[in-house]
């Protein structure tokens, strides 16, 4: 069965003054139908670039997709014509972003924007134009599903009048109205308060399961990803370094970076704070050769500098890109 989304060996570069930033260095990822997948990485690891590549919204100069394929239901997005991609975006893929205030137009009411999304997505899905009343009713329904209290009144408000959590719920309703199959969420709760984050994550989980949508949840927070996803990818400096089922990854992390990352998270058990990871994220102009993590790795071996480790299989659905686990 073909996966919904498959990214194969994606390479992306950015041209800047000093040269070329070799940001994505061969990203591999698979998302099946109805799967909840997480992508975890720290700032600058390339997770947002990956998402933008899938949505085909990278600013093409200075960015350049220098290799790889992005297959949606088996067809390469990178080779699609603009019309096809637009249709994909309207009917199959959608996204929610970190800052809902920036994602919503400040001069239109929330209801107006939501109805627009519904209108345009329905048209492309080949249904006849629904009447205004039907679109309105639809907007109220979908907003209610996200757990928004008092949906009807909220729809006549402007984004600035709503709280962060409410705005994000509006963005989620917009995404759900447009997306049939794949929802990409880039740090959707990072800007929200902890108690609101808990609500939104819970509701997102329910909605995604109910509608059988696949979700790619991108976050730098391991805890958030653990709550929502079934499988998770860990990214470092443009590469996927480990992937496993969420339960397995947290129970038994293998890659040195994953381990160090997990150790850095302050825990309620009160073990104190780890030292963090020595060194800095690499300069993409001159990234380290071989495994990009080797300068910061306590287990680095001479071969780590030579070539980039492949993803070695270490268990059921568990792969690690590290020579420590070479078969």
């Amino acid at each position, binding site marked *: 069965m073909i996966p919904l989304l498959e990214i194969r060996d994606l390479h992306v570069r950015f041209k800047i003054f000093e040269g070329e930033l070799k940001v994505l260095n061969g990203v591999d990822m698979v998302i099946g139908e109805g799967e909840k997948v997480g992508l975890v990485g720290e700032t600058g690891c390339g997770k947002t670039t990956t998402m933008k590549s899938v949505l085909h919204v990278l600013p093409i100069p200075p960015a350049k997709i220098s290799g790889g394929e992005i297959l949606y239901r088996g067809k390469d997005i990178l080779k699609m014509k603009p019309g096809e991609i637009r249709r994909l975006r309207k009917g199959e893929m959608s996204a929610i972003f970190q800052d809902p205030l920036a994602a919503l137009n400040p001069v239109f009411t929330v209801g107006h924007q939501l109805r627009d999304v519904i209108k345009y997505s329905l048209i492309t899905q080949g249904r006849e134009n629904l009447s205004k009343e039907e679109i309105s009713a639809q907007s109220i329904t979908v907003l209610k599903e996200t757990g928004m209290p008092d949906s009807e009144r909220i729809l006549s408000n402007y984004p600035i009048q709503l709280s962060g959590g*409410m705005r994000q719920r509006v963005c989620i309703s917009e995404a759900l109205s447009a997306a049939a199959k794949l929802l990409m969420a880039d740090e959707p709760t990072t800007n929200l*308060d902890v108690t*609101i984050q*808990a609500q939104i994550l819970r509701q997102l989980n329910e909605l995604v399961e109910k509608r059988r949508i696949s979700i790619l949840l991108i976050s*730098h927070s*391991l805890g958030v990803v653990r709550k929502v996803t079934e499988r998770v990818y860990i990214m470092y400096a443009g590469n996927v370094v480990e992937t496993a089922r969420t339960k397995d990854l947290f129970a038994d992390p293998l890659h040195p970076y994953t381990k160090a990352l997990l150790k*850095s998270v302050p*825990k*309620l058990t*009160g073990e104190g704070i780890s030292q963090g990871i020595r060194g800095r994220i690499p300069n993409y102009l001159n990234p380290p050769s071989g495994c990009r993590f080797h300068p910061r790795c306590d287990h680095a071996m001479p071969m780590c500098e030579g070539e980039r480790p492949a993803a070695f299989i270490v268990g059921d659905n568990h792969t690690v890109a590290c020579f420590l686990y070479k078969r």
Partner: protein
Amino acid sequence: MNPLSEEILTVENLKKFFVTKQGTVRAVDNISFSIKEGETCGLVGESGSGKTTVAHTIVGIYEPTEGRVSFKGQSISKVFSQRPKNLKKDIRIVFQDPGSSLNPRRSIKQILEVPITVHRTYSNKDRLGRVMELLTMVELPPEEYLYKSPQAIGGGEKQMVAIARALATNPSFVVLDEPTSALDVSVQAKIINLLMHLQKNLNLTYLFITHDLSLMRNIASRVAIMYLGKICEVASTVDFFQNPFHPYTKMLLSSIPTVSDDEEDLKPQEVISRGEIPSPVNVPPGCSFHLRCPEKMEICSQVDPTMVNIREGHVVRCHLWQGTGNV
């Protein structure tokens, strides 16, 4: 920390209101607490809790509307322009947003020179030496960073410069306003370690403001929770996490995304987060948390509870325990 240490900062019945077009914002509404020399006191809350306003009032950005702030026995309830110069040396702050706390058009050397020059702590000749010493103290190699501009360095490094700047005048008390909230977890670990290390070496007292309870679990000796301008609960860290009493505290703890089952087990019986955080312009009557509280009683919507001493060193403001302790 010496158990017999003196109280270095005392806040008594502090109120800070802001008059705006939408109404009076009761940012800080009658809070009292004190901090002992050498300890790290955590002030935790979500948006609208008033924690940043407390920090800013202590540092002198605002003048209290009512109430008193005392430092080393002296009243400092004044705005910074009216404070003696010595005080400006002794109480310092590290701000939340590394992006805007460093002037993008100045070099790091120039940024670090400002407090040194203002307080004339070193002669002109030694100024450069002192700047280099500060950079070394925060583990940033001077040769690399002296002439860099803040735009050329990452968020973590910016915060380290901000910390170096705060320490430039040899203060005894540092307010840390969410210093690592915008940073990745591995970078946060480094900075927290640095801060703890510096605290020990330089005998600093910290007021650490954050929304991250897991972080507090590991570095604070005491924790205070704020909600809509009022303190809900204060206790020593160990006691706080083992025996949380206030429903809001429990809701916060339940909402924390954790990374291991051990942590999940430590959470109190789950209080599902619901409802929105009201705006501080429209504080609900009675106990400001009653609209979201799962254990709400009738009295909660009418009367604001008072602070009660429920155990040694542990106070709570909640009608559930109103008659059990002494005030």
